C-alpha cells in the first residue's frame, strides 16, 4: 500500500469517526429565553503570569488584552492561596473560602490515623453491588460513590438557587461535579480509566534505559515479527473476574483474591517499504504514517461477556517505524460519549457536547508532561500533543460562546500552565538547561502560548455586549524552577526525623525506612510539613504541650536556611497553619507548616512522597523547568476585567462574591471574599 492509499483510508476513517456529530444544535440552559439578559463570563487561564502578561502586552504581542484594558477595562495582580497550587487556589475560587474551610491544602493529603495517602480533591467510597476498580475510583454496576472532597458549597449554586443559569466548564477541583443545578463538566482531578492522573503506554523494541523508573506511563517491550507487532492495551482490574493463573493468595489462612487485568489485544502491521503502519484493535483499523497521530479511537473493555463493558478513548502516535518500532498510546481517557464515571452534571450537558463536538479529552491534566519528562516525547512531540489538547479547548470555547445567552459561564484553559512547566527553560536564561532547550528546534513556545490565550480573549471579545461582564483570571503566576529543596533530608539531618536503618537512606522510598517512634516532623506533598502529633498521627510522639514550641523552632530554622550554592534563603515564609487558616480542617487534614519558597526554588521531586536524597539542595535538570508551588507573594495571579477594579489587593476568593454581586444576589456571610467592582 502506498502513501496516498494510506492517506485516503485514514481520511475515510476520520470522516467516519465524525459521523453522527452533525445535524444537532444543542443549547445551554436559559431561564428567560431572552438574548439581552445579564451575562458574566469568567475565563480561567491556569498559570497566566501577570509579569509575563505585562511584558508581552508592552511588546505588542497581546492586542486583545491591550484593547480590553485600554477601553475601560483593568489589569491587576491578584492574591492567591497559601500555597500557590492549582487545586488549592481553584477550590478557594469555587467556594470563596480559605483552605481551612474547604479542606484542600495540596495535591496530596494523608489520613493521619493510618498514613494512607490520597489525591486531595476526590475519594472513592465503596458502594453496594458489583464494582469495577478504576484505580482509586470505583465503577459500579449499581451506582458509583465518588466524593468531591472540597468541603464547601460552590458559589455558582447560589446563582442557580436564585434562578440564574450557570455553566461550569472544566473547573479544577470539581471531580465529580458538585451537586446542584449548574451545568458542569469536571476538570483537573478527573482520572483516566486506570484511575491515575494519566498513564500512557509505550510499545517499542528499543526500551529506554530508564524504563523501570518511568512514572505516569508504562513501557512495554514489543518486538515486531515478520512485519507485525503485537501486544495488549491494558485497562484497570476487573473485580468481576478472578485472575486465571492465581485466583487468590492465602495469607494467615485468609484468601485474598486476585483480579484479572482488563486488556485488549492489538496488532500493528508495518509496511515493509514505506514508513507507514496499520493498527488493528477490536473492530478498528487505523492507518498511520511515521510521526502521525490518530484521531480518537473508541475501545471497549469487556467486564462481563455480552453484558457489561467499559468504554474508553485513546490516541495512537506512530513515533517511529524503522530502525526501531516506537508506538505511543495516550492514557485511556474516560469516553465522554459513555462515561464510566460522572464527568457531567447533568448528563445532558455531556451528551450535547459530544453530539456537537465529537470526542474530546476528559482526563483532568491531559497534556502528557510525563511522556516528555521520560523522553518518550521530545519537545516538538510534546508541543504537538499539547496543541491537540488546546484545540479541544478552543472548539469547546467557541461552542459555549455560540450558545451562551444569559447567566454565568466559567471556562478553563489548561495548556498555558503545563506549557510553562515544560518550556520555562526557553525563556529562563540562567536555567542550567536553557542552551540545550534552544537547540530543540521549537521556537518561542511560551510566547506562542500567551498569544493563543490572546486569541481566546479575541473570540469572546467579539461576543461581548453591554450586558456582559468579563473577568479573566489565573490561579497563580509562574517562575523558573532551578533548585530543589529536600525537606525530608533536612529534617533527618537536623534530628527531627529518624531512620530504622541509616544505611538505607537513599534506597528507601515512601517513608518506609522512617522510625516513627523517634520522628517529630515529616514533609509530605509539595509544600506540607507535618508534626508527628500524639493522638492525631498513627504513631504520634509529639505531645500537645510541645506543639507550639516545635512549630516556632522549625519556622525559624527553615526561614534562616541558606542555599550554599546561591547564598539565598530559599524559604521566604514558613507559614504556621493555625496562624493563616481558619476552619475545621486546620490541624486535622492540614499540614502544620506550609513552605513558601522563593522564586527559583521548589520541593524536590523525591521529598514529596518521602524520599531522602543525600543533599539538601540539588539542581533541577528536568524539562519540567517552571513552577509556581511556592510562596504566593512570589507568584501572584492575574486579574483582567472589562470594568474598573475598585478593591485594593483583590484575591482569587473575591471572584465568587463579585459574580453574585453582578447579578444582584446578596452575598452570603459565609463567603470570605468581597466584590472587586
Amino acid at each position: 500500500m502506498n502513501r496516498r492509499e494510506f492517506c485516503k483510508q485514514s481520511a475515510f476513517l476520520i470522516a467516519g469517526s465524525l459521523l453522527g456529530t452533525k445535524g444537532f444544535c444543542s443549547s445551554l440552559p436559559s431561564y428567560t429565553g431572552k438574548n439581552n439578559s445579564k451575562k458574566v463570563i469568567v475565563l480561567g487561564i491556569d498559570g497566566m503570569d501577570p509579569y509575563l502578561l505585562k511584558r508581552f502586552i508592552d511588546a505588542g504581542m497581546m492586542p486583545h488584552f491591550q484593547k480590553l484594558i485600554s477601553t475601560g477595562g483593568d489589569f491587576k495582580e491578584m492574591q492567591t492561596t497559601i500555597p500557590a497550587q492549582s487545586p488549592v487556589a481553584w477550590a478557594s475560587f469555587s467556594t470563596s473560602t480559605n483552605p481551612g474551610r474547604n479542606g484542600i491544602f495540596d495535591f496530596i493529603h494523608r489520613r493521619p490515623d493510618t498514613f494512607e495517602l490520597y489525591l486531595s480533591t476526590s475519594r472513592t467510597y465503596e458502594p453496594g453491588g458489583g464494582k469495577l476498580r478504576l484505580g482509586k475510583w470505583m465503577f459500579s454496576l449499581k451506582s458509583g460513590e465518588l466524593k468531591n472532597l472540597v468541603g464547601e458549597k460552590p458559589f455558582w449554586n447560589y446563582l442557580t438557587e436564585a434562578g440564574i443559569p450557570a455553566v461550569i466548564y472544566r473547573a479544577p477541583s470539581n471531580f465529580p461535579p458538585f451537586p446542584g443545578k449548574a451545568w458542569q463538566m469536571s476538570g483537573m482531578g478527573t482520572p483516566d480509566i486506570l484511575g491515575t492522573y494519566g498513564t500512557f503506554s509505550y510499545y517499542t523494541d528499543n526500551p529506554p534505559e530508564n524504563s523501570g523508573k518511568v512514572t505516569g506511563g508504562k513501557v512495554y517491550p514489543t518486538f515486531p515479527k515478520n512485519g507485525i507487532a503485537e501486544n495488549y492495551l491494558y485497562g484497570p482490574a476487573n473485580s468481576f473476574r478472578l485472575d486465571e493463573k492465581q485466583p487468590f493468595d492465602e495469607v494467615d489462612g485468609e484468601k485474598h483474591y486476585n483480579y484479572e487485568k482488563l486488556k485488549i489485544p492489538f496488532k500493528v502491521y508495518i509496511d515493509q517499504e514505506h514508513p507507514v503502519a496499520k493498527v488493528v484493535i477490536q473492530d478498528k483499523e487505523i492507518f498511520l504514517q511515521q510521526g502521525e497521530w490518530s484521531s480518537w479511537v473508541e475501545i471497549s473493555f469487556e467486564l462481563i461477556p455480552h453484558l457489561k463493558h467499559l468504554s474508553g478513548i485513546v490516541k495512537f502516535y506512530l513515533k517511529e517505524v524503522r530502525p526501531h518500532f516506537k508506538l505511543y498510546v495516550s492514557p485511556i481517557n474516560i469516553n465522554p460519549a459513555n462515561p464510566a464515571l460522572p464527568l457531567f452534571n447533568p448528563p445532558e450537558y455531556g451528551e450535547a457536547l459530544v453530539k456537537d463536538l465529537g470526542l474530546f479529552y476528559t482526563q483532568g491534566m491531559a497534556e502528557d508532561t510525563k511522556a516528555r519528562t521520560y523522553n518518550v516525547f521530545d519537545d516538538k512531540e510534546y508541543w504537538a500533543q499539547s496543541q491537540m489538547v488546546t484545540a479541544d479547548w478552543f472548539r469547546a470555547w467557541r461552542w459555549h460562546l455560540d450558545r451562551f445567552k444569559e447567566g454565568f459561564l466559567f471556562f478553563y484553559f489548561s495548556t498555558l500552565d503545563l506549557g510553562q512547566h515544560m518550556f520555562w527553560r526557553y525563556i529562563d536564561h540562567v536555567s542550567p538547561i536553557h542552551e540545550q532547550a534552544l537547540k530543540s528546534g521549537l521556537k518561542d513556545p511560551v510566547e506562542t502560548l500567551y498569544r493563543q490565550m490572546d486569541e481566546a480573549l479575541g473570540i469572546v471579545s467579539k461576543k461581548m455586549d453591554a450586558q456582559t461582564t468579563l473577568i479573566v483570571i489565573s490561579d497563580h503566576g509562574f517562575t523558573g524552577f532551578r533548585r530543589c529543596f529536600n525537606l525530608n533530608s533536612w529534617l533527618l539531618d537536623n534530628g527531627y526525623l529518624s531512620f530504622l536503618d541509616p544505611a538505607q537512606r537513599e534506597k528507601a522510598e515512601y517513608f518506609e525506612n522512617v522510625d516513627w517512634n523517634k520522628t517529630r516532623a515529616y514533609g509530605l506533598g509539595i509544600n506540607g510539613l507535618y508534626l508527628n502529633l500524639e493522638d492525631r498521627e498513627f504513631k504520634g510522639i509529639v505531645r500537645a504541650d510541645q506543639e507550639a514550641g516545635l512549630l516556632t523552632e522549625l519556622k525559624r530554622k527553615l526561614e534562616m536556611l541558606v542555599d550554599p550554592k546561591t547564598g539565598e534563603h530559599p524559604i521566604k515564609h514558613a507559614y504556621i497553619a493555625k496562624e493563616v487558616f481558619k476552619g475545621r480542617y486546620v490541624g486535622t487534614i492540614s499540614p502544620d507548616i506550609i513552605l513558601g519558597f522563593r522564586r527559583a526554588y521548589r520541593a524536590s521531586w523525591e521529598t514529596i512522597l518521602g524520599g531522602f536524597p543525600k543533599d539538601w539542595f540539588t539542581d533541577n535538570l528536568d524539562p519540567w523547568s517552571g513552577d509556581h508551588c511556592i510562596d504566593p507573594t512570589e507568584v501572584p495571579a492575574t486579574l483582567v476585567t472589562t470594568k474598573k477594579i475598585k478593591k485594593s489587593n483583590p484575591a482569587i476568593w473575591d471572584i465568587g462574591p463579585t459574580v453574585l454581586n453582578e447579578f444582584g444576589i446578596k452575598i452570603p456571610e459565609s463567603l470570605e471574599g468581597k466584590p472587586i467592582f
Partner: protein
Amino acid sequence: MFRSGKIKIKKELYERVKSFAEQAGYASVEEFIEHTLEKEISRTGGSDSEDETKKKLRGLGYIS
C-alpha cells in the same frame, strides 16, 4: 431465607449465579457467593493497595 447456614434463592437466579461464577473463574457457586458477601460486608474489596496508590500518585507531573 436463612436456615441452618443455608440460603434459599430462586432457581432462575441460581442458574445465573452459577453461570457467572463459572465465567468469572470461581471453583464453585458457594465460593462466589461467599466472596461476594464478604466483599459487601467488609466494604473493602475495591481498595487499592498502599503501593498501588503511591504509584498512582507518582503519575502527577509535579512528582517524579
